[in-house]
């Protein structure tokens, strides 16, 4: 396997999460291990060239937001190539709770944020315009390094 990052997300009901993530975001289940009682031991869902692992709460320190008052300590960003507004409508129809509706950002991406049935917040982005570093700095008032 090639080097890189991937995220694991924990759910009280990981099987429901697998179904919901396919319905809302179009992720595809690419691996699932279930024990003899039907519990999810491991799973992977793919989108584009990335994947996330969906699992149970497996220790006192691996919790769903639903178990900790809705708090998130990190979010997963989904990068898409076309029609973010249709993506937003699909997620909303699947029951996503909208945190922020689609809006074009100063850096040239159109983004929205939503939370899934257990409170994981997802950010969805599509690049809709080419913005130079100077333009982004002027629009935001930030000093930007590492702009490619």
């Amino acid at each position, binding site marked *: 396997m090639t080097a890189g990052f991937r995220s694991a997300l924990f759910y009280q009901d990981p099987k429901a999460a697998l179904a919901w993530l396919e319905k809302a975001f179009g992720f595809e*289940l690419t*691996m*699932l*291990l279930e*024990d003899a009682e039907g519990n999810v031991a491991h799973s992977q869902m793919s989108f584009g060239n990335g994947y996330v692992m969906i699992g149970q709460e497996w220790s006192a320190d691996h919790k769903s937001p639903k178990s900790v008052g809705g708090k998130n300590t990190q979010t997963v960003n989904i990068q898409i190539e076309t029609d973010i507004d249709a993506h937003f409508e699909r997620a909303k129809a699947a029951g996503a709770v909208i945190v922020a509706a689609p809006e074009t950002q100063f850096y040239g991406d159109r983004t929205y944020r939503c939370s899934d049935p257990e409170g994981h917040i997802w950010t969805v982005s599509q690049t809709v315009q080419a913005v130079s570093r100077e333009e982004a700095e002027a629009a935001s008032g930030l000093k930007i390094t590492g702009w490619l």
Partner: protein
Amino acid sequence: MTSKVYVALRVKAAPERAFAAFVQEIGAWWRPNGLFQTTPRAPGVLAFELGEGGRLTETLESGKVFEIGRISAWEPPSRLVFSWRQANFPPDLHTEVEVRFEAVGEGETRVSVEHRGFDQVPAGSAARHGFPDEALLMRLAEWWRGLLTSYRDTSA
């Protein structure tokens, strides 16, 4: 309930072609794995006898034919189920493999394999290599992913 190992990927072929490649060209895309030896001999060549009740066989170099399993559901181009047993399984243990072919996107097929019941390989069996369930199922999933990747790149 039994344990399940599921893996899936997309191939750039219609379901008809994907199904045919799976059953007719298994001898070309199959990749044996030392952890899941079908027989104690050197790996042979796999082949399906097409149709319900057909055997999945492995023909060894000696010419001897080992029966890995039999087809219990034959529904081209969408579904195939066959039994799976290795020579080192206890006599009464049969695991089951279900393969599904689902049209997606433009001319693509999502091919999934679900291998059920492998946790029933008893503790102490040579087929288990001392692995606890989760490690055994993970190795099985990784092998099937490798097999499907080979199938995609070789045949489908």
